[in-house]
């Protein structure tokens, strides 16, 4: 689409339903009450000059350019801060107004460099535009005091801050406050000396700034501008696409000059991010042309040999022949595939189709296994559908928010910003997390209750909350009567009412004060709209599914379902983990959630796909590796996943992979799993493909190709070639055709097509005849599938118990700047914020072991050990330690055990009994591993780095 700036209506939309009618320059216009005159004028094509106003921020009224005249009112009110009123007669263009605007602009330009032609914002600067619009022809003030000598701050890797061009409109400060909620910017000083100041006049990089880019987007001049724009010049076209990082699913305008991506700017019409972004989506897309990216296929006979670059045909043919050989020698079920939660719906669908129809077995699984599979199991059991019940907008109508097992300011930053907005409006927050995560207390936000529970005791805490709700008569009787299964509720109510589930009885186990549990329960039950948001801190436990059931119980018992502001909301980790599940990536079910044992379903797919479908469930990832060790599983096609780094019990994964004869990795870089691969097929980034992602609120959004794939093929094309090579015909020309097939077999996708996605911008499934435009909030007037079901949630302690040998409990998580295994973000400037994983340890535990902040420490569990540097902090409770797994060097998952969720085998990352002690450097396992991966990355003819 040809480049054009987004229309800026100047002020946010009014919320009122009442309408008012007025005339502007003689033309009638009707707008909601409370709409500014500026916005009303813009809606009928009259753009009143403005500089401090922009429709993502509240009206501020400081530049004074937008003055208008109103009949019957003295003076020249600012149109941005004057709401439209019934019968007003407004004039936006009079001689007096022209004179005043010229006077204001003359003052602006008297303190502004006149270097437009060489300025980074040349052609894309509101000051430049408005100077033209008001017809400024001279500045008569001569050389007076000015800010032209201000030093430029280039400390942030992605954008420059040049105060000499600042017009002190405060849009940056307000964006940081109102949109992002970090309050990292202020105006220092007063009067003429006023100056934008990060924190205490520090360089942006070392200030409180989290580099979300909102200020750069809000800045009307070149003061805050992307370095890439300064380098390349302004963009000339754009495509709207969806970010490939977390499950929020922010949509962006990818702005390009020719084929070169210049910048990613959040798309205002994006319904998930509403025009906001975080450092990853906004800036960390440079990995697409990072030097370590592999662009041509490679094969090797043994994983000890160096790689050999080959052409696509040879690589595909070699892979196909190996797969056929192995199936011939070891049976049809000796090979399988893993779909990626970071590839598109279309690509995931194709991989599981290749396995079921091409390989003829059901050995396909997805990394969703390792994050939210308990969500699917739990919500399907309770509500009949297994996805989050609300849309992200819904948080703005919540009065009480429970956040359990999630750290949104790091893991889902744009959602966190909207949550903080709501909290600043007065909503109450309850945080249930072993760590004092940032949102418990950060500027202008403070949790009403923080329940710092012992890791692994979620079920006990939530059952205690349920105990309070039932025994203190806080149940929403009407909701339960009308919409839930009565018998099951009565059974459940009796169960939780048992004194052994009381907060007092469980306090010694959970370490959470009973009174806090009671207060939190009362607030959630009676504090207005109650919404529960949860993440991997709920699912990645041995009772992950049970915890999801407990959450569902609370929502049903208090009637917090079926309207805006409430609900059970899984914060899914990756950009398409929801989609990869919807596409049927699990071994036991076909796409459309039909169990493989269902003869009718298999008949339908045989007719559609022209191939017999195995009637038995396939192997899950942990069981594929187990079978490989047992010599029964020989080949694996892995698309866009690095199971060696992301899956638990790394030694077991390594052993499993090493036992296979043909491991095929399709990814952007030689990841850790590729150390054990025989074929490497270079993948394409989200910038180089068409497709769709489905975010955590079930919103299907388009990914649009911005540039030709550097590796030559989009990922779905690779899978298609592989299918053809093993003799299974696939002939798609464009992903839209794949989506049409998905819609045909997936009831909740029935109404989805690329045309409709382009028309509506995005669709939240289910989208079918009953809901042609999708379903923002589910279960509106009743549960989709019959009644809500209550399930008893008995606490069962995990086998991972702290004991004399392993006295501390390790839990894991994420940090803002890095993403998942860091494959992408480590290859961008983001590493300057977080270049190594650190072990957070409480001062008491550190002191006991003679550990100082920054020391090298060894973390050992019954599964293995690794070393990393300590970070002494009281953010974690005594007895609890914490780390992230973004950097392969630390191999955090060597330590995590093979414990997992009873229902879905989702690994228990969040609880591992460990011992921590001083260490003098990497363990020998790490050294052997580093040596091994260095040797494994050798490519014939390419100098090793």
């Amino acid at each position, binding site marked *: 689409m040809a480049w054009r700036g987004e229309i800026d209506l100047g002020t946010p939309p009014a919320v009122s339903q009442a309408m008012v009618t007025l005339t502007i320059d003689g033309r009638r216009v009707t707008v909601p009450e409370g709409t500014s005159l500026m916005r009303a004028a813009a809606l009928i094509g009259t753009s009143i000059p403005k500089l401090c106003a922009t429709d993502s921020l509240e009206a501020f009224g400081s530049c004074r350019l937008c003055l208008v005249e109103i009949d019957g009112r003295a003076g020249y009110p600012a149109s941005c801060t004057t709401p439209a009123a019934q019968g007003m007669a407004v004039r936006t263009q009079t001689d007096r107004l022209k004179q005043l605007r010229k006077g204001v602009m003359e003052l602006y330009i008297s303190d502004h460099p006149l270097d437009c032609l060489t300025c980074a914002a040349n052609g894309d600067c509101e000051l430049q535009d408005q100077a033209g619009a008001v017809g400024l022809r001279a500045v008569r003030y001569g050389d007076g005091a000015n800010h032209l000598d201000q030093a430029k701050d280039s400390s942030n890797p992605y954008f420059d801050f040049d105060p000499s061009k600042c017009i002190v409109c405060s849009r940056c400060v307000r964006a940081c406050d109102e949109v992002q909620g970090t309050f990292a910017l202020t105006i220092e000083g007063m009067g003429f000396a006023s100056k934008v100041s990060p924190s205490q006049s520090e360089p942006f990089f070392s200030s409180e700034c989290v580099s979300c880019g909102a200020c750069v987007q809000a800045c009307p001049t070149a003061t805050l501008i992307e370095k890439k724009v300064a380098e390349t010049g302004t963009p000339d076209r754009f495509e709207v696409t969806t970010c490939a990082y977390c499950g929020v699913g922010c949509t962006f305008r990818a702005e390009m000059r020719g084929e070169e991506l210049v910048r990613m700017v959040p798309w205002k019409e994006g319904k998930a991010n509403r025009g906001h972004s975080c450092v990853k989506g906004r800036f960390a897309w440079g990995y697409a042309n990072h030097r370590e990216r592999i662009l041509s296929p490679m094969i090797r006979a043994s994983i000890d040999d160096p790689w050999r670059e080959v052409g696509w045909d040879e690589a595909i043919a070699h892979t196909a022949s190996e797969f056929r050989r192995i199936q011939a020698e070891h049976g049809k*079920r000796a090979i399988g595939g893993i779909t990626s939660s970071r590839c598109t719906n279309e690509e995931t669908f194709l991989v599981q189709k290749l396995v079921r129809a091409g390989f003829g077995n*059901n*050995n396909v699984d997805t990394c*969703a296994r390792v994050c*939210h*599979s*308990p*969500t*699917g*199991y*739990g*919500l*399907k*059991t309770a509500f*009949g*559908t*297994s*996805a989050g019940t609300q849309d992200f907008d819904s948080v703005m109508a919540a009065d009480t928010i429970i956040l359990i097992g999630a750290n949104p300011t790091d893991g889902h930053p744009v959602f966190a910003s909207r949550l903080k907005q709501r909290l600043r409006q007065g909503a109450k927050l309850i945080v249930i997390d072993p760590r004092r995560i940032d949102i418990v207390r950060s500027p202008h936000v403070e949790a009403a209750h923080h329940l710092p529970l012992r890791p692994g005791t979620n079920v006990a805490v939530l059952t205690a909350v349920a105990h309070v709700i039932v025994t203190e008569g806080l149940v929403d009787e009407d909701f339960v009567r009308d919409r839930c299964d009565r018998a099951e509720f009565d059974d459940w109510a009796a169960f939780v009412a048992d004194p052994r589930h009381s907060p007092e009885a469980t306090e010694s186990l959970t370490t959470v004060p009973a009174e806090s549990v009671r207060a939190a329960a009362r607030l959630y039950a009676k504090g207005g709209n109650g919404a529960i948001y949860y993440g991997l801190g709920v699912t990645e436990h*041995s*009772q992950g599914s*049970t915890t999801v059931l407990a959450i569902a119980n609370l929502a049903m018992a208090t009637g917090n379902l079926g309207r805006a502001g409430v609900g059970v909301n899984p914060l899914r980790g990756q950009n398409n983990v*929801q989609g990869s*599940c*919807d596409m049927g990536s*699990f*071994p*036991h*079910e076909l796409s*459309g*959630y*039909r*169990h493989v*044992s*269902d003869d009718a379903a298999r008949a339908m797919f045989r007719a559609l796909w022209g191939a017999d479908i195995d009637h*038995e*469930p*396939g*192997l*899950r990832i*942990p*069981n594929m590796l*187990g*079978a490989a*060790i*047992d010599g*029964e599983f020989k080949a694996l096609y892995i698309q866009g996943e690095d199971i060696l780094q992301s899956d638990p019990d790394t030694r077991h994964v390594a052993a499993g992979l090493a036992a296979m004869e043909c491991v095929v990795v399709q990814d952007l870089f030689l990841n850790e799993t590729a150390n054990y691969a025989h074929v490497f097929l270079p993948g394409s980034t989200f910038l180089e493909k068409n497709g769709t992602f489905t975010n955590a609120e079930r919103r299907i959004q388009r990914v649009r190709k911005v540039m030709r794939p550097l590796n030559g093929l989009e990922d779905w094309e690779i899978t298609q070639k592989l299918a053809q090579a093993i003799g299974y015909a696939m002939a798609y020309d464009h992903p839209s055709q794949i989506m049409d097939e998905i819609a045909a077999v997936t*009831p909740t996708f029935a109404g989805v097509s690329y045309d409709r996605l382009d028309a509506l911008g995005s669709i939240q499934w*289910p989208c079918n005849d009953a809901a042609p435009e999708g379903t923002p909030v589910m279960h509106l007037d009743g549960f*989709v*599938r019959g009644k809500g*079901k209550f*399930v*008893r*949630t*008995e606490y*069962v302690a995990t*086998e991972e118990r702290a004991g004399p040998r392993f006295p501390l409990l390790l839990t894991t998580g994420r940090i803002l700047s890095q993403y998942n295994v860091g494959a992408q973000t480590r290859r961008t400037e983001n590493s300057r914020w977080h270049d190594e994983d650190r072990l957070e340890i409480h001062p008491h535990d550190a002191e006991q072991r003679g550990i100082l902040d920054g020391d090298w420490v060894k973390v050992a569990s019954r599964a293995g050990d690794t070393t990393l540097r300590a970070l002494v902090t009281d953010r974690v409770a005594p007895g609890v330690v914490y780390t992230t797994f973004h950097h392969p060097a630390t191999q955090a998952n060597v330590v995590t055990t093979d414990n997992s969720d*009873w*229902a879905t*085998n989702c690994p228990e990352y969040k609880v591992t009994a460990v011992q921590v002690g001083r260490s003098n450097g990497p363990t020998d396992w790490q050294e052997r591993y580093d040596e091994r991966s260095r040797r494994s990355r050798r490519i014939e003819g390419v100098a090793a780095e």
Partner: protein
Amino acid sequence: MSATTDKLVRMVNQIATEFEGQQPGNAVAATWDHLWHFWDPRMRDRIVTHLDTGGEGLSATSRAAIARLGSRAEPQSQTRATEFGVDADGNTESDAG
């Protein structure tokens, strides 16, 4: 006992314990239903063989459930998580987990 079998024993005991908590008196049927719907044939065969060769380490509920698994009959669904059929109005459950 191979590592894999040991892992399967721990898995089935974990499932059995959970259903003893969730559905007292119906844990055997629920465990059987779960294994039938979610385990791969090799895993099912391996655990049945293990039961036939003494079933070391298996809990009582696990033993009863695996016994039924061996009978190759198809279990009645004991929880909505194992209901995969299409209901009257063409809607299927979505199991995005």
